[in-house]
């Protein structure tokens, strides 16, 4: 039995084939999620929101556009946020207006900002509910962006504020927020509102109760052809599916074209094009969720358990165009339905994938795809565990009182682990801390310095096994690498499992590339080929492939050099997101995934 188990998972055995089948099944299951008969139609779960039975009467589309023009003019004159004009405009509409100044020191200048210190002002007006106590609130925000963007959003915001002020059926306060510098301003406002004070902002003067839901508007043209819904937030968190259902229901009621990931839904699910369309939509959502950054101003609300979504108006090449009044009616309907809420949105799903706006895949359906990949790791670990125990069995069979062969020293196993993690810590800390030194010695900007330092440390890690072997006294033993592989497999399984629970897309993408190489890695494989395979499937290259696939999916394919530049900007954005908003993707990759991969790299070069 021992002999049987020892060679169970060698290549060309049943176990080995089973693991390959598992891997293929996981991929097929994942791709099959986009197939329409396997998905469920979306439905409204919250009873208090009911159907779309409200009467929308918003009609001040022209007023919104004229306000947009005024806002644009004042913005140019002020060279940033036209604070006085906005405060006066909001006060004229009967809101209680407050401002918040914030300043933030970036770890390194972003290519957008090009300076270390970002200063700005948020302006927000609170529409108090005429008869209700000030216990709950809804938020509608529009970003103040430089140039020509988002003027119409602010104009529509002010027109809606004026229209809402005349209604008496509000049960919650409504906050109209115009934030500067997108996410940095939003972060400052949220921290001030909730008194979380992580980065040292002072609390806000005006407050309206606990926020139940938030909507972010991005509108840059007078007429639009479709509305795009953006759900992915920070760290891949998603709002409650009921918010997407609400948006879709109102789009259908008003006859507005609505898209998700910029793609319009198709009816022909049984054709190849229909399926690939749905699969592309789902892959885009997976990629966006995996990268862990907030894809709209709404993304930072989700951490505070506030369901939020961004709505972006797109002016495409279609005949049927809608004016701002229709968008105003849609928002009026949505806000009126959110007004009817008695509790926070919690009836529908929090973890889902959307192949289209009317079809969803819930966590119970997509998790088995990841489970199959985790099973591969666990079976391999089990096989190794049995293998490690088997030589002892053989000895016992032969001579009863034979001495057990001494296990590998703890140092032999612990050393690669500690060194890998130290490299990971270096990858996490050094790029930002060494940027001044790098700028002195090399003719690069700070951003480039940070990114290139990171890449350099990553590549330097590849040279580690050769050097550590020289330092250690003994040669690596057969037992040694097996114990290390066992530890590393279990470590990887736990890591990927925890990641998949929080951010399924990130866990799945990492698993798809890491599981095949790590499960089959032994020192006895051909060195050059397996080294190449390991490098090509390492986390950094995974990010590179994801960049290329993402560009393909949004129908803007890039060449290799452009892709490389994009890859570098993705890394810098990841580091910046972590420093500014607390995104966990960069620390996860640098401190945990990369050391884990390095441990397997060590195993490859064990002898």
């Amino acid at each position, binding site marked *: 039995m021992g002999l049987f188990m020892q060679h169970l998972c060698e290549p060309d055995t049943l176990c080995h084939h089973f693991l390959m089948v598992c891997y293929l099944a996981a991929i097929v299951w994942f791709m099959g999620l986009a197939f329409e008969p396997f998905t469920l139609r979306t439905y409204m779960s919250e*009873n208090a929101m*009911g159907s779309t039975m*409200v*009467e929308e009467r918003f009609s001040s589309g022209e007023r919104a556009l004229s306000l947009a023009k005024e806002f644009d003019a004042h913005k140019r004159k002020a060279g940033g946020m036209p604070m006085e004009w906005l405060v006066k405009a909001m006060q004229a509409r009967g809101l209680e207006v407050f401002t918040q100044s914030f300043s933030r020191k970036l770890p390194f200048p972003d290519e957008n900002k090009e300076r270390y210190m970002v200063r700005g002002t948020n302006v927000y007006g609170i529409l108090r*509910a005429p*008869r*209700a106590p000030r216990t709950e609130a809804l938020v509608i925000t529009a970003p103040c962006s430089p140039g020509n963007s988002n003027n119409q959003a602010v104009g529509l915001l002010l027109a809606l504020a004026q229209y809402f002020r005349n209604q008496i059926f*509000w049960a919650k306060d409504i906050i109209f927020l115009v934030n500067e510098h997108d996410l940095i301003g939003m972060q400052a406002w949220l921290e001030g509102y909730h008194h979380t004070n992580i980065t040292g902002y002072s609390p806000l003067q005006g407050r309206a109760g606990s926020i139940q839901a938030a909507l972010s508007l991005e509108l840059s043209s007078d007429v639009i052809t479709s509305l795009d819904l953006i759900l992915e937030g920070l760290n891949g968190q998603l709002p409650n599916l009921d918010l997407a259902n609400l948006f879709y229901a109102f789009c259908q009621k008003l006859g507005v074209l609505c898209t998700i990931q910029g793609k319009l839904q198709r009816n022909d699910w049984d054709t190849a094009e229909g399926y690939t369309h749905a699969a592309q939509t789902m892959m885009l959502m997976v990629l966006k969720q995996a990268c862990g950054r907030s894809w709209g101003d709404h993304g930072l609300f989700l951490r505070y358990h506030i369901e939020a979504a961004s709505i972006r108006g797109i002016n495409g090449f279609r005949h049927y165009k809608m004016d701002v009044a229709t968008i105003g009616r849609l928002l009026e309907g949505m806000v009126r339905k959110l007004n*009817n809420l*008695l509790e926070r949105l919690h009836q529908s799903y929090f973890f889902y994938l959307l192949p289209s706006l009317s079809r969803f895949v819930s966590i119970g359906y997509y998790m088995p795809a990841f489970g199959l990949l985790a099973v591969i790791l666990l079976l391999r670990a089990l096989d190794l565990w049995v293998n490690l125990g088997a030589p002892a069995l053989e000895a016992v069979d032969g001579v009863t009182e034979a001495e057990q062969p001494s296990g590998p020293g703890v140092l032999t196993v612990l050393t690669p682990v500690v060194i890998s993690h130290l490299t990971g810590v270096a990858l996490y800390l050094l790029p930002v801390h060494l940027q001044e030194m790098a700028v002195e010695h090399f003719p690069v900007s700070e951003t480039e310095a940070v990114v290139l330092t990171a890449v350099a440390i990553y590549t330097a890690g590849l040279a580690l096994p050769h050097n550590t072997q020289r330092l250690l006294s003994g040669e690596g033993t057969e037992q040694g690498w097996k114990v290390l592989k066992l530890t590393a497999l279990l470590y990887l399984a736990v890591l990927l499992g925890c990641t998949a629970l929080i951010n399924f897309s990130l866990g799945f993408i990492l698993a798809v590339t890491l599981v095949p190489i790590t499960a089959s890695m032994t020192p006895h494989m051909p060195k050059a080929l397996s080294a190449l395979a390991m490098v090509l499937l390492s986390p950094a290259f995974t990010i590179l492939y994801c960049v290329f696939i993402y560009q393909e999916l949004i129908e803007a394919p890039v060449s290799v050099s452009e892709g490389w530049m994009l890859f570098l900007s993705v890394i810098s954005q990841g580091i910046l997101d972590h420093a500014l908003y607390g995104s966990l993707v960069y620390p996860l990759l640098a401190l945990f995934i990369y050391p884990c991969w390095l441990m397997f790299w060590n195993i490859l070069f064990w002898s």
Partner: protein
Amino acid sequence: MDYYNLMRIFAFIHLLVSIPHGYSNYVETKAGQFFSSGHTNNWAVLVCTSRFWFNYRHVANTLSVYRSVKRLGIPDSHIVLMLADDMACNYRNPKPATVFSHKNMELNVYGDDVEVDYRGYEVTVENFLRVLTGRLPPSTPRSKRLLSDDRSNILIYLTGHGGNGFLKFQDSEEISNMELADAFEQMWQKRRYNELLFIIDTCQGASMYERFYSPNLMALASSQVGEDSLSHQPDLAIGVHLMDKYTFYLLEFLEEVHPASQANMNDLFKVCPQSQCVSTPGHRTDLFQRDPGSVLITDFFGSVRKVEITKDTINLTSPVEPPIQRSGSGDIQIESLTYVDQLPVAEIIHQKPKQKDWHPPDGFILGLWTLILLVFFQTYGIKHLKHIF
């Protein structure tokens, strides 16, 4: 010729003499009819059990029955109105101080003279049962009491969310059909009603009257067991459904009824057939002693004072006509009524529960223990017993 004239005069005199006699007969018949229903006063208990803005329609249901009942003559002092939530002053109501039953805001059933006796969180199962049975603390004001006697006809109307055998109160508790039946039995034993009409508009409403066992109860429900009662029409300006289908058509029917109308219960049973209501309304009359065809709507929904003006004295020596026997059920003997045992202990003690499943015989347990003891002694041997004893 003379005889002919004499005959005519004789007939005329006979006619003159018989008119007052016939007239007093007519009046006596009418006087007899005064008491044919057996009741002298009317009460109404109208309950809405659900709160939250999206249950607007339940409050509108109750208020429309309240409106009809008040219009037909029952005063506020004889109506116990229980509303679990305040829709008229809800923050989300775009027309404050109104509750509409028809879309386009045709009919405001809230009016300006509504008197709500139990409001908000006071509408609980306990309070409802206390109102029915009269077991209220002495400090309860009169407006919150059901001060009925044995000559009162009571209308009880319930609406809300219900299921098979229960009605939900306020999202936190339920009343079961058995509790309701027992409450009515308590009312009967304490002589708190003469006749009782029970109307319920919920999903699976017929299950609530299945368990009644007290006499003089008539029940109507908006749907059978296994069916849902549906809401009628939304109003887009207010943003909610305004009424339930059954009560909507009930209100339309009641709007045609005036204090002198002779519409009877058979017309009420026909309200909202399945073609209009989608659910099948049901009714129960087997506990009721009179024929439903002879029961006027105003016996329960109105407070009709019967007045007949006469200039003559009337002999009420003939006894009051007994209640009209129901045709076709002559074999049901109506015995003289007695008080039941307060606590039929003998019945409780000697009654064995019905065993639907097969249970092993009692000796089995004894045998099992004997076996265990035997095995125990065999294992440890008799000699060890010496140490125990």
